[in-house]
């Protein structure tokens, strides 16, 4: 007891002496915020009834922004515990939100409850900081702290897989047929497509260390391969195979994309780093521009419509007597196709993961990682770096092609608009945020980025705080950029940055991210 008191005293004193410094720093940060918010938040031009621009002022907005920055900086300097910092800052923001609501509309029960939540959060943060300041800093390593979790570790993967498999049924049970399409399609399928693209690009960027900014090109090749073959080639040659179109075209799309991966690979073999990134970026644009301008081939901007949907292994999902619903004695509903599509993309994504995990432990996968670490050393050990790079490009492209084929089949309509550079950038962002080389990181980043955007549509309650005209989806890009900056500050090498070894003698020890190279092309 006395020892605890003795150790706590200097800490408390140190914290007190920090207050003037923290206040000074926070005041400076608030001043900077004032300078920034003055032209953006405080002044606003609006059109009045007679189409004239008039200047309106929103000083309260600027004031709130400055107070928020002041509190955040103050707490950041003064507090030691990261959790206490987060709680206090978040609580203060909620408090400010309540204040804004009270000032804007009225002090009603809603504003009062927001106030209550804010006060509770701040109080919790202060209590936690008090606790953290009085207990000596923990010397336990991360492994020791999570020791309680160790027995559950082998069950995590099966549990996650089971959850993924049961997801559509859970959604169905929770919100019924009508409501669940949104959850299965917008959340489930959409996120899984990006997970699969992320895992495919992970082979090129994460394992082989080749920065590819044109990955969407292979996605487009896969999608157009399916669209063109199923709408043009199959009806003209073997119309009877129409119901099987998706299953026939899936491998063809993958192979075509892999071929294009090799075609791209050859000219860029000698390029490294920035130069490689620029050429791959250009390659992605070339594919898109060809699709736009070669109208005879791809129908240009108009795109390709009425692409056949996948069948349940030959049984179409329609209301006819031969359809899926009739065959299984169910009432016709579009939900069955959505659920089926969910399982198809789940299987494709799991195939990608399985192949990646397997290949990492094979000589070719080790050669990819060795290439990322040191290309010259690879050559001195007899590794044919040309072939190694080309296999990485081809395999990554193949999975992109599979995903593209699925995308075309799910949408039923594709146009070059779906394959812009932004798609490449988003997939690359998923890989980089997740932590290059990590499969789990890609999953978390996909859920956060893709699922996070979808969630924005659901946040209607924010309208109560910010007014009826507030639309959270308009802040997509802002939040995207902000979250990228924050994650990169907090975890510069991505969410899951340690590397699992592919072989071990006695025990497998994760390799720290500070040693793993990013690759230089």
């Amino acid at each position, binding site marked *: 007891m006395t020892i605890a008191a003795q150790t706590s005293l200097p800490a408390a004193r140190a914290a007190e002496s920090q207050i003037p410094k923290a206040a000074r720093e926070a005041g400076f940060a608030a001043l900077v915020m004032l300078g920034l918010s003055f032209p953006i938040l405080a002044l606003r031009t609006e059109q009045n009834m007679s189409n004239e621009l008039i200047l309106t002022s929103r000083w309260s907005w600027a004031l709130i922004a400055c107070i928020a920055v002041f509190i955040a900086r103050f707490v950041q300097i003064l507090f030691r515990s990261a959790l206490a910092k987060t709680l206090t800052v978040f609580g203060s923001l909620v408090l400010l939100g309540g204040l804004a609501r009270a000032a804007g509309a009225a002090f009603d029960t809603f504003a009062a409850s927001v106030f209550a939540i804010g006060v509770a959060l701040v109080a919790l943060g202060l209590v936690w900081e008090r606790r953290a300041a009085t207990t000596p800093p923990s010397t336990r390593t991360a492994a020791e702290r999570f020791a309680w979790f160790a027995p559950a570790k082998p069950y995590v993967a099966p549990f996650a897989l089971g959850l993924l498999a049961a997801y559509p049924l859970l959604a169905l049970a929770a919100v019924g047929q009508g409501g669940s399409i949104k959850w299965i399609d917008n959340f489930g399928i959409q996120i899984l497509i990006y997970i699969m693209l992320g895992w495919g690009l992970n082979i090129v960027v994460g394992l082989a260390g080749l920065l590819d900014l044109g990955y969407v090109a292979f996605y487009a090749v896969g999608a157009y391969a399916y669209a063109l073959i199923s709408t043009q080639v199959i009806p003209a040659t073997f119309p009877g195979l129409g119901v099987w179109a998706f299953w026939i075209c899936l491998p063809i799309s993958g192979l075509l994309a892999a071929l294009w991966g090799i075609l791209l690979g050859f000219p860029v073999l000698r390029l490294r780093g920035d130069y490689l990134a620029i050429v791959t970026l250009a390659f992605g644009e070339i594919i898109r521009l060809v699709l736009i301008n070669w109208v005879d081939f791809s129908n240009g901007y108009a795109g390709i419509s009425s692409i056949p949907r996948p069948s349940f292994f030959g049984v179409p999902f329609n209301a006819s007597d031969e359809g899926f619903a009739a065959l299984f004695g169910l009432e016709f509903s579009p939900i069955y196709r959505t659920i089926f599509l969910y399982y198809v993309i789940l299987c494709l994504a799991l195939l990608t993961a399985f192949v990646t995990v397997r290949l990492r432990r094979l000589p070719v996968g080790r050669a990819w990682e060795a290439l990322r670490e040191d290309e010259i050393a690879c050559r001195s050990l*007899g590794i044919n770096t040309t072939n190694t790079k080309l296999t990485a490009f081809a395999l990554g492209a193949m999975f992109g092609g599979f995903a593209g084929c699925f995308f075309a089949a799910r949408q039923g309509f594709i146009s070059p608009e779906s394959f812009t550079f932004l798609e490449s950038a988003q997939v690359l962002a998923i890989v980089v945020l997740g932590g290059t080389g990590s499969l789990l990181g890609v999953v978390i980043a996909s859920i956060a980025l893709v699922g996070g955007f979808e969630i924005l549509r659901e946040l209607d309650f924010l309208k109560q705080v910010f007014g009826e005209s507030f639309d959270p989806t308009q802040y997509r890009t802002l939040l995207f950029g902000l979250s990228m900056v924050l994650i990169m500050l907090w975890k510069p090498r991505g969410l899951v940055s340690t*590397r699992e070894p592919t072989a071990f003698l006695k025990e497998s020890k994760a390799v720290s991210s500070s*040693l793993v190279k990013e690759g230089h092309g």
Partner: protein
Amino acid sequence: MSASLQTRTAAPLLQVDHLTMRFGGLVAINDLSFEARAGDITALIGPNGAGKTTVFNCITGFYKPTEGMITLTHPDGSSYLLERLPDFRINWRAKVARTFQNIRLFQGMTVLENLLVAQHNPLMIASGMTFLGVLGTKGYRESSRKSIEKAEYWLEKTGLVERADDAAGDLPYGAQRRLEIARAMCTDPVLLCLDEPAAGLNPRESLELNTLLRSIRKDHGTAILLIEHDMSVVMEISDHVVVLDYGTKIADGTPEEVRNDPRVIAAYLGVEDEEVEEVEAEVEVVAEQVEAEHKA
């Protein structure tokens, strides 16, 4: 023993003929000829900038020489013209392995993984160019197990077996040097080229290195070509020393001969100020003699 000695003298393992390497106007290597015999430790020494590493880069295919021929003859009689092979084939077909002056390990991979990457080509064949490996066939699992055993053998030999599952970048400097040698040896070379293996080692580590290199030669019959500044290593273990200065060979012989060569003393070890003129005159005489010999 005598038979093996005869075969040694009959066909040099590595023969470098009239090797010249120019970078623009700079002549890094000028008409260099020397040979390294099978089972020998040949040292290549010379002051900084003499062109030693350039010779290595020519032998291991990282540079294509401007002129000259580099012939490698295996004990079984097959021979390779190294200047014509692409770099990865020099290791895989001609069986020449090398280490680097500034260590080039795969730092983010574990020590064991480094040694497995070195066995890439045999494992690639065993995995049926990946296809059988994905299926996990018995043959591949067997060769995968063997590759780990081989890695373990070299880890024991270099005293790294305790660190097998640590990241290579986490090892101390001396251990990284040893690991690089172990990694090169995992490719089963007939000629091992070491670029300053003792640089940055303390005296005890230098001694261990000598033991390791001797054992590589004795137990595996691997010839070693060595660039080194540490004379305790060079004089102690090498059978044959080649001295370079400004890209030209100035001496070639046993360590004893080289040590007493006035040109080597002048160029490499340096001379007292008052002796400079004297030595320079001497060097000129020797140089003329050598030139006359060449013309003859």
